[in-house]
């Protein structure tokens, strides 16, 4: 049975008395009872931590928190306005956009390269795939600990091996112009191997005989990539882009461990801003307003991509 198919409801005909319809509806509901009982445990937790949370964000965003001087007060969209007017928030949004594009494009590009190069089945390819996949499994906090030493001024791995070739040794995490790009490197390192998996799976759909025929017809690697492989991988691209965007908004552990949003807010990302407002400034109203804006943006984006995916046949 298809899931999207709604349960057939009894249709009231003009001949049937109203009471009879109600009775039949009652029977349908009684017949549905076992299903409701099975769904109840899940629905309780979803109600508490998803829909309820969504509702509380909405309400909290409309109120001002009690202060020693004033009680809780309804202030309408003032929190939203305050967040929108906060240069730290707009800064975080801009940082997050740069961060999203700057991590998604290279990691997806690298993932495609890795998948194309390692699609063959042999011991070497297999070992390389493992090497590239390992960062996916380690916590962002652990990755941050390792990269903190890599970026350490003077004695760190980067300066020790490469920095010395530069005229001036940059302070990778301490320079507001560089820090955001430095933390982007960690994300690319961590995610490229994950996206590679989806491209490897997608490549299996490329028909070998078509590739063989194109090869015999003299189509070079670029032509085959452009006209055979990439069109086949379109759904994978879309899917991976959605995941990469979500990751860019939801992964902030490295900001927390390495830079705390600094120097001078240069690495502040939206989720870290929300955390700061709620936990450091105790401003739940502002934090909720920021959450609301972010959720709206993300849901719009996800809905859009779902629609695009639904319009294409056979997404991953």
């Amino acid at each position, binding site marked *: *049975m298809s899931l*999207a*198919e*709604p*349960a057939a409801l009894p249709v009231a005909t003009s001949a049937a008395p109203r009471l009879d319809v109600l009775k039949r509806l009652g029977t349908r509901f009684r*017949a549905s009872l*076992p*299903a*409701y009982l*099975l*769904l109840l*445990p*899940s629905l309780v*937790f*979803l109600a508490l*931590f998803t*829909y309820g*949370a*969504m509702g509380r*964000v909405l309400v*909290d965003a409309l109120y001002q928190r009690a202060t020693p001087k004033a009680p809780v007060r309804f202030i309408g969209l003032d929190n939203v306005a305050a967040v929108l007017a906060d240069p730290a928030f707009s800064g975080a949004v801009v940082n997050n956009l740069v961060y999203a594009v700057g991590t998604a494009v290279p990691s997806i590009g690298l993932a495609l*390269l890795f998948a*194309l190069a390692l699609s*063959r*089945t042999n011991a070497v390819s297999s070992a390389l795939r*493992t*090497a590239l996949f*390992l960062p996916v*499994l*380690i916590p962002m*906090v652990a990755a*941050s*600990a*390792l990269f*903190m*030493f890599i970026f350490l001024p003077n004695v760190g*791995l980067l300066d*020790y091996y490469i920095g010395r070739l530069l005229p001036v040794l940059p302070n990778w995490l301490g320079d507001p112009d560089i820090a955001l790009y430095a933390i982007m490197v960690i994300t690319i390192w961590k995610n490229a*191997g994950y996206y590679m998996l989806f491209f490897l799976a997608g*490549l299996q759909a*490329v028909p*070998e005989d078509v*590739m063989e025929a*194109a090869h015999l017809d003299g189509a070079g*690697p670029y032509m085959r990539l452009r006209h055979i*492989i990439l069109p086949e991988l379109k759904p994978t691209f879309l*899917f991976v882009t959605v*995941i990469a965007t979500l990751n860019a*908004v939801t992964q902030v*552990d490295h900001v*927390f461990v390495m830079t705390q949003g600094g120097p001078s807010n240069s690495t502040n990302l939206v989720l870290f801003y*929300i955390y700061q407002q*709620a936990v450091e400034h105790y401003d*739940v109203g502002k934090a909720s307003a920021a*959450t609301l804006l972010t*959720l709206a943006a993300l*849901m719009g984006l*996800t*809905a859009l991509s779902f629609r695009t995916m639904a319009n294409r046949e056979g997404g*991953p």
Partner: protein
Amino acid sequence: MKLFDRLFRDAPLATRGEITPKLGFLLTVLLAIVWLIPFLWMVVATLRPASDGINAMAELMPSLKPTLDNVRDAWEIGDFPRYTLNTTIICAGILLVQFATITLAGFAFARLAFVGKTLIFYLFLMQLMLVPVLLIVPNLSLVAQLGLYDTLTGVMMPFFASAFGTFLMRQAFEAIPTELEDAALIDGASLFQRIRHIYVPLSVPSFSAFAIISVTSHWNDFLWPLMVINSPDKRPLTVGLSVFTKTAEGTQAWGTIAAGTLMVIAPLLITFLIFQKRFISSFVTSGIK
């Protein structure tokens, strides 16, 4: 290393005698080496004696006099056995409750007809779109209201229901022939008996795929437990590591930090290396962490 291979069957993209694909492969080899450098450094630095000095810390050549001092120091500074225990409790607790909730809900969606099915399905779908990580602020206040602040249960609770797991189980259950259930029905098996003795045993691969995804993501969770947990003895590995790193960073003890990081990531990495194929296929089929 043949484990990957069974999953990705040979896909020769017709590259005989061409230079571009070979260059791409070479570049990938170089990048794979670069990708391993942080791991290599971690192991080398863990074994490096403090007497080598801070200036030799970045050296990727292993020390000729390897020592376990860093491991001992890390073990003493951070309470890693306690952190590991807490993380294990969190992951196991979440997974056990999830198994119950997703089995029941998955079965309802796969096999039962009921009023409002489409609507309820969309309610589940919404969880995937709402990105639970972003709801930390309202969920923290709820956890506090429930009196679960600073408890491991508080860390686990928001994940007890899983829309992704429900969809995965629905798919698995739909693939099971109804004849099996009909036979049990004739024998007078109750609903729960049918789920327990027919659907669950036949869906073990889906359960294990879900287990891998669930445990991996909660093993690595940081921000949420950081907000819920206050007592040092309730910290999971990730929070413990971040506090430990801050302490050791002040003393420039990078060998100790490397050792601590190694201790945190070793369990999952070793499990992965043993069950590579399973991990990879779960990650591919899920697509959602």
